[in-house]
């Protein structure tokens, strides 16, 4: 049983294209996140949603637009892709606030050519 799943696993595309990454969690959590991991393995928060409401927007360019149709799903749409967007994007989820373990998905490796 996959707890946090992402599709696609790999995404190769040309500069200027628009692409989406999907995330689903079956843990019943109410908070979901997007993180970006660059080529040096540095992992940084992008967004978080709680019960479909945007909570954290970490100064990410407007080209990135998260959407949460329900609390089990958080998708990431990226417009006008740039070379610098090449990275691994991780979705995560947790329950509640305070400290609760964040469970990470397997990642989506995006390569912009």
């Amino acid at each position: 049983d996959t707890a946090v799943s992402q599709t696609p696993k790999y995404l190769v595309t040309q500069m200027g294209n628009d692409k989406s990454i999907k995330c689903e969690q079956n843990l019943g959590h109410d908070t979901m996140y997007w993180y970006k991991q660059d080529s040096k393995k540095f992992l940084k928060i992008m967004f978080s949603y709680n019960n479909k409401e945007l909570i954290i927007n970490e100064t990410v360019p407007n080209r990135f637009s998260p959407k949460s149709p329900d609390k089990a799903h958080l998708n990431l749409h990226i417009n006008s892709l740039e070379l610098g967007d090449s990275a691994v994007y991780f979705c995560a989820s947790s329950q509640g606030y305070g400290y609760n373990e964040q469970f990470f998905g397997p990642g989506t490796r995006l390569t912009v050519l």
Partner: protein
Amino acid sequence: QKEVEQDPGPLSVPEGAIVSLNCTYSNSAFQYFMWYRQYSRKGPELLMYTYSSGNKEDGRFTAQVDKSSKYISLFIRDSQPSDSATYLCAMSQGGFGNEKLTFGTGTRLTIIP
């Protein structure tokens, strides 16, 4: 200056050795301290977490937090080849809207059989 600094490595040690991984931080608001392990091409998985100064032990792993010095460590005893991975320290303020994890840059560890 980054909020969380981690010894970058890489680190190679022989099987059976004791490994010490370290992070320092500058934000006094951090209340929760975690160590994540990330195998190649996988998502991070939580290894240990603590919220108070002192030591916490779990099998071969010991997490140590010194809030007065803003310093955390992870010790691995009797290291095994299966411990070869990238280790990420992470911290959180906790509380609604502050659940995001701030990560160190990661230390790549290789255990040599």
